[in-house]
């Protein structure tokens, strides 16, 4: 894949060595898959399966074959549905998939438990922001049992999101079954039902070289319905892998390759594949969390892009454009900006979920709006080539201007100005005299208020009949019989409140 910017970290031999080391780990150490269907499918594929320990050792050919099938499926998908130009560096981003219990208040940075109304507002803001492509309800509502959050999220997105590309983390097997049935109601056709735009599962290892039984059950549910599955490993260098870049690449890649084989094992028609490499470094001050905004994110992103290219997958996701800062300050801007810019320059297709503060410490609409503005800035940089046409070179203006004169009259040329300038409603660029502390923060607050004033409460985007069908599906899956009526009543109240 030829990219305009030839940003590379690893040599060709390095990439091959990482790949070989991943294959060696899978061949010699193996991975535990505590699920009978998977074990049997792997055996048929040619893997060495120990049914007692549930450990599967993969010969290289099994992995290569799984990769080849995914490549074929993915190429066909991209040809038919989603063209990817390796020289298009502009970005759309995903909102966080909805595992956040707290909302962080703009300005004060105090955090509080989230409510149903916060979720609705997040959907409204996500729909209004130009660079958000995949919308989520962002939060876990405190009024409900946490295990129901994913069902509530998909319900709200189905009812109120104009953008029909949703992101919802799946919390349990019971939820997964309900979400799949809900997606069947909402989907306009079988393609939309299966392509992951409404609901998607990402199969992840639960620990070092092992997957959890429940996760495999969820994946199997999706595979049975021929719904698209992805795989990834949220790995932290120094915790899930040894503390060296090379071993992180080899081991994380091994987990991803094992997941890839699992996807193909139960559904060789899996629609398409994205190489998702959300690697981090452990935080040595608090080893229960990783670092989100360290310089390592750039290294991981560059290596991820090279691995994805090595395997022939054009869409590559890496976790960049994050920060460890817990308030919106210089640190948040710097860490987000540097890691995002350098990852985009390397050809990362998507920078992971946005609007998150620290390591899932809370969701912030302020951060989401800032992330959107940053993406606008970077998209301007990466979408432009400098126009070298005769008009742009503008010999008459230069030669005609008096020496010591100026070109201010060109500000009157509206179309040219629009092409040449990036403008920001949020970032301040005036003189010291016209500045006062907090001016950017106020601009963000005004932006959020303006969106909510214009779009809140959101209108229904599906027919009433579909709403009833969705509620019937939820009622049939959730044990608490009062859940649906309570949700309906709470929703009514949330929509009636002033923004």
């Amino acid at each position, binding site marked *: 894949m030829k990219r305009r910017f030839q940003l*590379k970290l690893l040599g060709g031999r*390095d990439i091959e060595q990482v790949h070989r080391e991943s294959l060696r780990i899978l061949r010699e*150490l193996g*991975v535990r898959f505590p699920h009978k269907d998977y074990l049997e499918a792997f055996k048929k594929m040619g893997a060495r399966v120990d049914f007692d320990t549930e450990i599967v050792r993969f010969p290289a050919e099994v992995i290569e074959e799984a990769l080849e099938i995914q490549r074929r499926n993915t190429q066909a998908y991209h040809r038919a549905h989603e063209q990817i130009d390796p020289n298009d560096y502009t970005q759309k981003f995903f909102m966080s998939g909805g595992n956040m219990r707290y909302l962080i208040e703009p300005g004060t940075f105090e955090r509080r438990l989230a409510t149903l109304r916060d979720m609705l507002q997040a959907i409204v803001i996500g729909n209004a922001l130009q660079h958000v492509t995949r919308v989520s309800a962002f939060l876990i509502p405190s009024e409900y049992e946490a295990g129901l959050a994913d069902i509530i999220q998909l319900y709200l997105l189905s009812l109120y999101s104009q953008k029909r590309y949703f992101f919802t983390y799946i919390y349990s097997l019971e939820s997964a079954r309900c979400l799949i049935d809900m997606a069947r109601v909402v989907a306009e056709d079988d393609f939309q039902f299966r392509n992951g735009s409404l609901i998607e599962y990402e199969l992840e290892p639960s620990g*070092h*070289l092992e997957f959890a039984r429940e996760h495999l059950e969820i994946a199997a549910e999706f595979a049975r319905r021929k719904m698209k599955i992805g795989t990834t490993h949220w790995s932290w260098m120094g915790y*899930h*892998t*040894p*503390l*060296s*870049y*090379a071993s992180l690449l080899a*081991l994380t890649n091994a987990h991803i390759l094992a997941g890839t084989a699992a996807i193909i094992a139960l559904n060789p028609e899996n629609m398409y594949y994205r190489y998702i490499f959300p690697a981090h470094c452990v*935080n040595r001050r608090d*080893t229960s969390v990783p*670092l989100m905004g360290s310089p*390592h994110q*750039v*290294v991981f992103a*560059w290596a991820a892009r090279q691995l994805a290219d090595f395997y022939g997958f054009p869409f590559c996701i890496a976790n960049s454009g994050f920060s*460890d*800062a*817990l308030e919106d*300050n*210089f*640190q948040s*801007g710097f*860490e*987000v*900006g540097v890691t995002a810019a350098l990852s985009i320059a390397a050809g990362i297709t998507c920078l992971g979920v946005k609007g998150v503060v620290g390591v899932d410490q809370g969701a912030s609409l302020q951060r989401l709006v800032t992330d959107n503005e*940053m993406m606008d800035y970077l998209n301007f940089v990466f979408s432009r*080539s*400098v*126009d070298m*046409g005769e008009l742009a*070179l503008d*010999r008459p203006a*230069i030669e005609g201007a008096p020496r*010591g*004169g*100026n*070109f*201010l009259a*060109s*500000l009157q*040329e509206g179309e040219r*100005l629009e092409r*040449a*300038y*990036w403008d920001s409603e949020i*970032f*301040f*660029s*005036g*003189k*010291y005299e016209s*500045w006062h*502390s907090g001016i*950017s923060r106020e601009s963000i607050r005004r932006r959020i208020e303006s969106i909510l004033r214009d779009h809140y409460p959101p209108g229904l985007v599906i027919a009433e009949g579909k709403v009833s069908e969705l509620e019937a599906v939820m009622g049939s899956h959730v044990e608490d019989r009062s859940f649906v009526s309570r949700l309906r009543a709470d929703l009514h109240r949330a929509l009636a409140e002033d923004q």
Partner: protein
Amino acid sequence: VRGATVKPSVFQVLSPEELGKIHERSLSLLARVGVRVPHPEILGILASTAGIRVEEGAQTVRFSPEIVEASIRGAAKSFSLFGRDATVRINFGCGERIYLSSPGQYAWVDEDGEQRRSPRLSDARDAIKLGDALENIRWVGAMAAAVDVPAEVRDIYLTRELLRGTRKPAWAWVGNGNTARHILKLYEIVLGGSRQLREHPPLLCFVEPISPLGYSRDGLDILLEYSRYGLPVCSGPMATAGSTAPVTLAGTLVQENAEILSTLVIAQRLSPGSPFCYGGIPHTMDPRTVEISFASPEFLLMAVCTAQLARHYGFPVYINTGMSDSKLCDAQSGLERGITMALGVMTGADTFGHLGICGFDQAASLNQLVIDDETIAYIERFLRGFTVDEDTLAAEVIERVGIGGNYLADEHTIRHLRAEIWVPRLLNKDNWERWWSSGHRSLAEVASERKRQLLSTHQQAPLEPGLAKEIDELAERATEELVTGR
């Protein structure tokens, strides 16, 4: 063992054909329109050169393409600047990255968000001390245009403070030819003579053409003084798209390139073969206020292009990245500084900055300088890359930890911790509970504390007392000549 390292100079916007087109248009502009050179002595020198057409009445000079090309070929493409005792040096045109603090600002911010004030000589002393202490600041600026020193000799006193306060290469803005002469004498005293000044140049001549297509008399006076010592010359017009250059980026690049090439020709006529640095610092303005911007995406695009143009000619390049239009230590400032610095270093440029500035030359801030130093460490860590070998691939370690384990306490982790993991001094990495309960201090507060700590503990290497006395006496004589005796 193989190193996976990042190779800057790969971030490019212009194709070779486009570079050629800008060059060709710049040559045409210099031949047809030329530049204004308001300096009779220099006009006289230029008039005697084949390929240069001087129109004395209009003070206009036109250059043939041949003389421009010959000047490009003739100038030295790499050079070093030395500190006061030649033990510390920075190298241009060799792949080094040089980060510099501001040579001088006309306003001063003590703490983030406070009202700005006029700077004093004591502020410059603090700035120099801090620049000396911060490991990533390799070229120390005086940062403060001290208003408690008469304007006629301000740069002389600031240079004296630089010579006293740091062994790193250092600079302050130079006002005119009169002060330039005294500043060069200060260096002669400290370095031990004019030969040492030539052999171990401690400073370069920063020429700032006045866009469009002009020069100031003072700037040319300084160039003439510095050229007597064959010192390196850097040309950095601040052509601003839409106000002092065409609104189109291509047009601005053509004009700025022509201005830089004109300085090159003049400098090479005054001191043939002297080193040259391409100062790629075109800017844009905010069309709502007509104020210059130091961090717009268009500015970043042009910084990339100027780095390409400089490399096309083979010159080292000085770009103005790592700055922000924000006046505060806020998210906008972090985003703009971070993005422009990160993509700036990927152009393969030599020099970045100026650091420690609030907004577009709105003030200097030592807190900001401390933060900028930390951000450079962050970027340099990424650029360092990593090693792929048997030890770092850690196959044995992975087997030892086995299925379901973790690596936190493994010997391999402890052994590699320092080399692999960059640990920030200022950036906060706490979880929410720890951050909130420890007072949720802002980055600006943390930076301010580090600034105070460095200012109270850092020991500068003193200038030898005899030399210190001599430069004091010279500064006093300069005051008598340029202020008292006026």
